[in-house]
């Protein structure tokens, strides 16, 4: 449908279409609020809405049970919910943007080696400097994600293969396997990093405090602002480089801003949550189905959808293997890979 160049709509669309999109955005926002509430209430200990409310707002008092609830809500549920929303928005917007910039419906920040770059950097950081706190290695993850993302993105946009879905997927795969082996090499010689790695590697929004969440959110906010400024240009770039140039788009500048935005979004989310693949790919396709190919609508939809998907996966993960938990990243992969396979099967991706 939207992956072919012929079906570009007029910018803006009709008033009717516009109203429908605004309503859709509102519906998504309501769903997100509901999921947020559920995320605060559901878990190893289920809380009633009144208890959640109390835990959020009440001042400390002497009641033992209420103090406990307050502790659960404030130190466990709130951070992981906030992180799921923030990271979900970042991954959703990042995925939609990367598909726009590469004109490649298969593009996903997780498939681009961003994850493996971050893993490698985290392990190296732990092995070399003995980091123990996520706040310390978050910066390494960020750096690794950025470098790997730029390398894969660059490799797959050289020459004629640029825009071929297969080239991008394979360049990502090549870098991923290479870095995974290097990561193992480091992890096998250093037990502390092996232990940290296996938890970080599953992709989870749990167990990170606000000391990590605030800086990550700051990066994501910058990424989102950059992303928003570049949306009109993405629409024009999708008409082809020549047309876009003719319409006055500074292609080099717009691409650079786009790559910086994608790296900030994906890198920051990966640094905080660990590798979570497929989410950007999934929500970008759903968003395109809902809004059509106008990126000014598609990207906000993808952001909200990303947050909803990550939150719901996190909530489901708390419920399915009780008393343990299934990491959100694992659930997203179990959901995303069949989705991806279905897209392949329906012939959404053409071998260019």
């Amino acid at each position, binding site marked *: 449908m939207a992956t072919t160049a012929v079906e570009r709509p007029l910018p803006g669309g009709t008033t009717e279409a516009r109203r429908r999109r605004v309503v859709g955005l509102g519906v998504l926002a309501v769903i997100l609020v509901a999921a947020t509430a559920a995320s605060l209430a559901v878990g190893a200990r289920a809380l009633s809405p009144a208890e959640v409310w109390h835990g959020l707002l009440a001042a400390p008092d002497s009641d033992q049970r209420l103090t406990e609830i307050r502790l659960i809500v404030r130190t466990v549920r709130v951070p992981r919910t906030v992180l799921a929303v923030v990271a979900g928005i970042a991954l959703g917007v990042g995925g939609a943007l990367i598909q726009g910039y590469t004109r490649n419906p298969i593009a996903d920040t997780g498939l681009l080696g961003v994850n493996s770059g971050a893993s490698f950097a985290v392990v190296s950081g732990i092995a070399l400097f003995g980091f123990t706190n996520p706040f310390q290695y978050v910066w390494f993850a960020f750096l690794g994600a950025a470098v790997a993302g730029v390398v894969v993105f660059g490799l797959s946009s050289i020459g004629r293969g640029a825009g071929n*879905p297969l080239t991008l997927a*394979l360049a990502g795969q*090549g870098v991923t396997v290479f870095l995974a082996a290097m990561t193992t090499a480091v992890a096998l010689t250093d037990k502390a990093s092996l232990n940290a790695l296996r938890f970080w590697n599953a992709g989870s929004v749990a167990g990170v405090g606000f000391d990590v969440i605030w800086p990550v959110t700051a990066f994501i906010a910058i990424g989102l602002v950059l992303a928003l400024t570049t949306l009109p240009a993405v629409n024009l770039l999708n008409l082809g480089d020549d047309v876009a140039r003719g319409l006055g788009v500074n292609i080099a500048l717009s691409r650079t801003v786009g790559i910086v935005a994608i790296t900030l979004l994906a890198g920051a989310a990966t640094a905080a949550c660990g590798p979570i693949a497929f989410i950007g790919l999934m929500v970008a396709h759903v968003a395109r189905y809902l809004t059509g190919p106008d990126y000014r609508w598609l990207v906000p939809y993808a952001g909200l959808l990303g947050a909803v998907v990550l939150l719901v996966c996190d909530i489901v993960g708390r419920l399915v293997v009780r008393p343990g938990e299934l990491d959100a990243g694992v659930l997203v992969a179990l959901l995303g*890979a069949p989705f991806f396979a279905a897209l392949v099967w329906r012939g959404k*991706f053409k071998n260019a």
Partner: protein
Amino acid sequence: MKRNGPGAKVNGADARPSLTPGVRLGRVSFVWRPWTAGVTLLLAAAAFLLFCLSIGVGDFPIGLPRVVATILGGGDRVDQFVIMDLRMPRALAGLVVGVALGVSGALTQSLARNPLASPDILGITSGAGAVAVFLVTVSGGTAAAVVNSVGLSAAALAGGLGTGLLVYFLAWRRGIDGFRLILIGISVSAVMQAITTWLLVTADIRDVARAQAWLVGSLDNRSWDEVRVAFWGTLVLLVAVLCVAFQFKPMHFGDEVAAGLGVRYSMVRAVLLLCAVLLAGVAVSAAGPVPFVALVAPQVAMRLARCPTPPLAASGMVGALLLIGSDLVARTALPVSLPVGVVTAAIGGPFLVYLLVRANRR
């Protein structure tokens, strides 16, 4: 004959029929390429030499002539003990796994008509890995008891086979298209990796180290029992491939040509694919999912032997050379002894990128 440069083949589709006259012996016919045959023989000799060298290198170094003499049945008792009991299983495992991966890669690349279709990318190795990690990390429970009774190798083999079949059926849609096969393979591979990751998270840290070393591909601590299974398995599969491959000339000419040649074509193709998956499974069961050998070996063999498509025998030999060589490097040249898979990934990752860049330059 107009020979296309290797670069022209990178997307695989335009392999042209050779104009070299064929040789016919009864029902068997093949094209006699003196260069290819010569290169294959040279590669075999090099592989044997490296094999002996690898046996000789270690804490107790043994010279090449003594190694060869001992393998052929001579040598004193110390040499015999060190070589036949201690070092032979590892070296032989390297040889067998290398050949199996090389041939498996050559088959999948030929069948998908895409140089990037190797067992690692099609998810076969990650499926085998997931099952093996399950075995290493989960103890207790009926499932674990069943898996334990069949053993790590058999379980990994079953995992690889199951994943291979899954990918094949998921990619089937009025025939198999190489492009679809690869993308489905990547996604199935991701699911298997997610499962593996989850198993590692829930496991005990000591098991994790064991599983992790196994997951990257390693030849450490092979016993004769493991090697024997892999050796005979590979041998039987190679004979099967040899028997079928002769009947499969249209392999490289595209679906239309093959369809015109009748129903047998898809049957033979399925058998060859099955052999490729089983070869990869045997290799993984013996050494873990050693990355990239199956991808790199056929491409290198193709360039050396100057064939339009990956040559089976030469691919196997290059695979053996790659694996034994990498193991030698992993054991001796690096400051810490690492699993062989780390070295093959260090070679293979850049090679994959080189293939892509080269394909795009056309």
